[in-house]
């Protein structure tokens, strides 16, 4: 079996996989896909939600059987000999199955035993893994008590207890803060360099795809492109520009205008300006834009959107717009504290949100964002501090305050077995709508969120993007003046995220106040003001431009929001860890 660098570690030929659905035609996850990934290389699979990325990786891991076509991994036919493949590869699913009631060391030992790693090999391997993941000091901690980023690193370590001949990673960095994301990437790239590890990974982060040797782009079960990232980037050659908003105009409203134009492929707010990609045929230059070097994402959007079946990025119109933005404070938080037993989830935070603003709460998993949200919505009682939402103290008048706000929970609270219409009817009734108004609001929701064609499908069967739209529609049925969205774009692909933010921008322009949490730092650019949270505290607050400035001392000329986040968090953690630094030896204490 060839394992020479450059040889193919994974070859798919006309691979097809369908999934049956109730009452609807089967969905084709992979449609005659042919591709290959080479030894010793980092290959990324990118594409929107439902493109077939996870299905492809599961087929390669022998966890699913293809309907037709062939798939060879390390020269072995996976369908015929799944166990032979599983003996030699490692696979990290989207949610790595750590045993939360086992400690870090016990999880690692379990996988070492399953992979038949000898004690001698462990003595060599463990210190290396501990050093890379910085999990050394936490070996006796239960996996369930680790932060999201640490869990992900432990999952990766479990797949690396021995050097696999092929490593499959399914969205390894989803839901992980920028700091942990950077660390995970350092581990992977280092092993590719040092051990010429072969890695195939799927990702929703296009900047990650850009770092891979080879990129396979999937869309609706088909391969859109297959080659080096540069091949994708050059598609946008001469078509990428940056435009500056006029005085008084926000970057996001200029971005929204550009996105609505048919001659523009893509637009995103970027550092107070708007970066956009033109149609190949666009000529008129009415934008005073500056040409910039293209990046991978630009080419990606061209591949995805410059197609006959191009998806429209829809906006939204609400029936009764609210009075335009003023200086009126609609959400005020002072000294807010929430303790769970001895654990302080939210530690004396202050912020204010004015009418019609988009306020972003940024931070890694476990920073306290969701807890803050639940207190704002009156779902849990604060342990201290004061809260004012829509003119009422939620602690004393939760019912009246709640009627004026909408809440989209992190895992969309929809009723899976109910259809789209039934879900909307239920939520409308729950908000006390009835008769003509209820009818009108449901029609509005179906139309504005383009849910009509799926009105009778059960919400459990909806693709991710549609679920998010339905959840948002349900939260807007009673025409709230404040909308809370908890991690609405988590796991969403770039296209779905553009569509989401287009609607949010439109809502804000019509006077709805938006408070949103996210761990995609670039999304901070859509906000009027943001707050960065970590370990229950707000570390920085201000306009995106102000916060970005904090990343300046990283030495980069134009710090990104990611850089700013990492700088802010590291500075804060450095302060709190300074005292505890003594218990963390320089070299890893793996032989504990």
């Amino acid at each position, binding site marked *: 079996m060839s394992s020479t660098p450059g040889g193919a570690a994974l070859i798919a030929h006309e691979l097809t996989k369908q999934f049956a659905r109730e009452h609807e035609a089967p969905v084709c996850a992979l449609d005659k896909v042919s591709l290959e990934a080479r030894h010793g290389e980092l290959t990324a699979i990118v594409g929107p939600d439902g493109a077939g990325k996870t299905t492809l990786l599961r087929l390669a891991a022998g966890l699913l059987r293809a309907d037709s076509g062939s798939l060879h991994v390390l020269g072995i036919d996976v369908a015929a000999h799944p166990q032979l493949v599983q003996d030699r590869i490692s*696979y990290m699913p989207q949610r790595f199955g750590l*045993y939360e009631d086992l400690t870090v060391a016990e999880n690692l030992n379990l996988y070492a035993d399953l992979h*038949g790693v000898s004690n001698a090999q462990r003595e060599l391997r463990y210190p290396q893994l501990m050093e890379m993941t910085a999990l050394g000091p936490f070996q006796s901690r239960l996996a369930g008590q680790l932060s999201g980023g640490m869990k992900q690193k432990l999952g990766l370590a479990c797949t690396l207890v021995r050097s696999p001949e092929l490593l499959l990673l399914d969205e390894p960095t989803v839901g992980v803060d920028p700091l942990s994301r950077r660390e995970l990437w350092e581990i992977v790239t280092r092993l590719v360099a040092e051990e010429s590890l072969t890695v195939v990974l799927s990702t929703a982060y296009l900047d990650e795809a850009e770092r891979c040797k080879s990129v396979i782009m999937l869309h609706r079960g088909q391969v859109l492109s297959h080659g080096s990232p540069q091949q994708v980037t050059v598609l946008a050659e001469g078509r990428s520009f940056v435009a500056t908003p006029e005085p008084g105009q926000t970057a996001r409203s200029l971005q929204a205008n550009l996105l609505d134009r048919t001659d523009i492929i893509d637009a995103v707010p970027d550092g107070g300006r708007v970066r956009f990609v033109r149609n190949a045929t666009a000529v008129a230059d009415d934008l005073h834009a500056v040409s910039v070097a293209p990046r991978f994402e630009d080419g990606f959007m061209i591949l995805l959107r410059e197609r006959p079946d191009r998806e429209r990025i829809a906006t939204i119109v609400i029936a009764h717009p609210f009075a335009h933005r003023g200086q009126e404070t609609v959400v005020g938080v002072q000294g807010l504290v929430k303790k769970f037993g001895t654990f302080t989830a939210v530690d004396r935070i202050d912020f204010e949100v004015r009418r019609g603003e988009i306020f972003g709460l940024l931070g890694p998993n476990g920073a306290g964002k969701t807890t803050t949200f639940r207190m704002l919505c009156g779902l849990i009682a604060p342990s201290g501090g004061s809260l004012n939402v829509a003119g009422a103290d939620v602690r004393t008048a939760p019912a009246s305050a709640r009627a004026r706000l909408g809440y989209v929970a992190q895992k969309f609270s929809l009723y899976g077995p109910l259809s789209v219409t039934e879900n909307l009817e239920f939520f409308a009734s729950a908000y006390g709508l009835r008769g003509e108004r209820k009818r009108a609001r449901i029609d509005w929701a179906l139309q504005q969120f383009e849910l009509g064609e799926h009105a009778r499908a059960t919400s459990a069967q909806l693709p991710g993007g549609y679920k998010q739209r339905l959840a948002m529609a349900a939260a807007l049925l009673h025409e709230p003046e404040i909308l809370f969205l908890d991690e609405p774009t988590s796991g969403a692909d770039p296209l779905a995220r553009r569509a989401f933010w287009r609607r949010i921008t439109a809502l804000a322009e019509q006077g709805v106040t938006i408070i949103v949490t996210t761990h995609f730092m670039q999304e901070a650019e859509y906000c009027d003001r943001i707050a960065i949270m970590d370990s229950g505290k707000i570390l920085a607050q201000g306009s995106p431009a102000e916060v970005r400035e904090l990343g300046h001392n990283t030495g980069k000329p134009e710090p990104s929001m990611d850089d700013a986040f990492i700088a802010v968090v590291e500075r804060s953690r450095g302060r709190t860890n300074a005292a505890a630094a003594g218990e963390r030896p320089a070299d890893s204490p793996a032989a504990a």
Partner: protein
Amino acid sequence: MAQMSVSGESGSSSNAWPSKLRRMRALVMKETRQIVRDPSSIAIGAVLPLILILLFGYGLSLDVKNVPIAIVMEFPTPEAVDFAAGFQLSPYFHPFMMRSMPPAQQQLLEHRVDGILRIPADFSRHLVAGDAEVQLIVHGGDANRARIIEGYVQGIVGVWAARLASQGSANPVQPVNVQARLWFNEANDSSYFLVPGLVVLVMTLIGGLLTAMVMAREWERGTLESMFVTPVRSDEILLGKTLPYFVLALFGFVLCVLSAKFLFHVPLRGSMWVLLGASMLYVLVALGIGLLISSWVKNQLVASQLTMLVTFMPAFMLSGFLFDLRSMPTIVRMITYVLPARYYVALLQSVFLAGDVWSVIIPNTLILAGMAAALALGSRAVMHKTLA
């Protein structure tokens, strides 16, 4: 296994016994740690058996004691007084002595007493003639209780008659026949058959419910997806699950047997080894059902409800532990033949109360063994390392 026919280097080494054993040991250790750390397995494995034992042993008693009864002695001959004394001394009755029927009937109407025992005025004369009769009227509001009281009365009459016979005196009183079902329960203490029945429930809970739930939990939390892509084989995953819960179930079994013996003084007339062997077989059957259910129900809630429905409820209602199988309608009785609990209860009742009755032990053991083997093969056949 198909994989073994292809000789890859690492493929053959991961099939070798040492690495197989190492993987099994790792899985068993993992499972044991989880059991010890998870309060819910401790609850189902140890706390629940204890609660059931105490509840069934002390709380839920089918015994009837201190039954208020009116004894109408129409003429106090020495024989009649001697006869009534049997009731006064019995812990089961609390007699009220009367001289005529009307006040006794009034008491019964008001349900101040559960029954009337009338000793007619000509009792002594008939006793000599050999055809003595006493009249028993029982309040039938609670049919079960009425039947039990009837049994008690017959028992006391029987004892008195036997004593009379042993003293060599004339013909004994025989108002009614003594029923056979009190043979093995002469103390008429319901813990005698409740506690052995309890063993069935505990085994079923640990073997079936707990196993189905922990397996479904692995599906829910996605831990199996990661584990599947390792050299681990499906039979190793199954055995790694089976062994720890087998031990846990035996722990529950020992708790039950010890409490049966020392707390409730239930006799163990058969051999300990037969009891242990039969119980091990039954645990294997329960484990097999649990694993089979969880291989196609991958949700903890559904798995637990299904297991309750398929194993626990039938073991409770249809195993002959609470309700006599012979008095069930034919259709229901037919259903009981597919229930493993039925055979285990038969074994337990025999071993605890009657002794090593081989004509009961052998067929029931064989059936349980057959079921265990079929379920083991069945779970092995449906357990694939694939998703969906």
